[in-house]
């Protein structure tokens, strides 16, 4: 049985929201075992034993609630050894019911006020529709919470941090692609891919120092993020006459809160890499500052894709 401490207070905003939106009819058990007042208590006792239930609503011919018989009533009946008695003699007549459209939060308050283990759920004419226990509510809330967490985990967040307002047409005949593999976890190799990229571009002699610096900072920070946080990743660089587009795709933990990750100084890096001078929380911030366009896509638990565009002129 659930006591008051388990139900109150409700701290989670999600649970509080659910509890006010959910109605008794969304949670209650529909197939209720009922008995008539003229049936015998011994029948009630046997049903309760066999079905492992602790209370049975008693209804009239139109399924309107007349009373309820609970374990307490049965104990009373057993003490008296009134074997042939009808249910009407022992049932509780002052039944606390809840309406099928009542919110779960109100139902929970009812459970707090009255120390009953269950409430018959009725419509406005007191016709029995179902039965509800604190356990039903808990199970349903847990179900919703679980679904919510699963959804949250697989939800892709796309954040256009800077630019990416228009699609860009690329003349493929004038573009070329460079591919780099980044191993996650191997801090000693951090900077390999971005160094190679910068060297390749610098060797053409076509680019200004400031452009090369932008490419260096953006690709370095993206690479370090993969090395520090992810299991593995790739960096694909599309070089066109007007801009370079750097796409870093990783398999990793993803980013739960992209806005927070963009805050300068925010870092989830380990103590070990911080001692090496990484994890200053400047990575994404530097990328934002030095790129002309930046987009971050992430699925928590799966990985992150960062796309940056740096204009040549």
């Amino acid at each position, binding site marked *: 049985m659930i006591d008051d401490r388990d139900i109150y207070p409700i701290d989670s905003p999600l649970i509080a929201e659910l509890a006010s939106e959910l109605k008794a009819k969304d949670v209650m058990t529909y197939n209720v075992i009922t008995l008539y007042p003229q049936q015998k208590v011994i029948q009630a006792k046997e049903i309760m034993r066999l079905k492992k239930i602790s209370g049975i609503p008693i209804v009239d011919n139109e399924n309107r609630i007349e009373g309820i018989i609970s374990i307490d009533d049965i104990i009373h009946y057993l003490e008296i050894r009134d074997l042939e008695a009808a249910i009407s003699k022992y049932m509780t007549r002052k039944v606390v019911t809840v309406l099928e459209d009542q919110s779960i939060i109100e139902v929970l308050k009812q459970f707090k006020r009255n120390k009953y283990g269950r409430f018959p759920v009725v419509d406005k004419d007191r016709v029995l529709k179902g039965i509800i226990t604190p356990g039903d509510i808990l199970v349903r809330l847990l179900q919703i919470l679980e679904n919510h967490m699963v959804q949250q985990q697989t939800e892709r967040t796309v954040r256009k941090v800077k630019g990416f307002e228009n699609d860009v047409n690329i003349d493929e005949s004038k573009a070329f692609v460079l591919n780099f593999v980044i191993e996650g976890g191997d*801090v*000693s190799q*951090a*900077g*390999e891919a*971005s*160094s190679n990229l*910068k060297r390749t571009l610098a060797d053409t002699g076509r680019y200004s*120092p400031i452009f090369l*610096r932008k490419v*260096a*900072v953006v690709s*370095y*920070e993206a690479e*370090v993020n993969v090395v520090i946080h992810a299991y593995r990743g790739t960096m694909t660089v599309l070089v066109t006459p007007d801009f370079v587009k750097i796409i870093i795709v990783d398999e990793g933990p993803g980013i739960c809160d992209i806005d927070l990750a963009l805050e300068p100084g925010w870092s989830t890096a380990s103590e070990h890499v911080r001692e*090496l*001078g*990484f994890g*200053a*929380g*400047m*990575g994404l911030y*530097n990328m934002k*500052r*030095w790129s002309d366009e930046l987009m971050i896509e992430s699925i928590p638990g799966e990985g992150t894709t960062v796309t940056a565009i740096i204009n040549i002129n």
Partner: protein
Amino acid sequence: MRLSEIIESVPLKVEVDSDLEREVTGGYIGDLLSQVMAQAKNGNIWITIQGHQNIIAVAALLNLSGIIIASGVAPAQNMLEKAREEGINIFTSKANSYQLACQLHSAGVK
């Protein structure tokens, strides 16, 4: 001002001599790599207490003129090897970052 001129007046131990005729355009002090990536400029000499191999990628990407490892921090062997491969000048000093900055300034690095 060239590195070769600087080492005449500033007591630096040359660990890797890749090209001491490089021009020094100024200096930067920092131990957080991202901070250095964001702030240090082409041709700067970088003063840091990091002596591990990850500093080489930063220096190479920024085209720094050299790295001074301060406060008597021992340079890692794999870092020195990488510096040779990448053509990065490496110096060490017992002096701390502030003292080094003062010495460089007196030597003419502004």
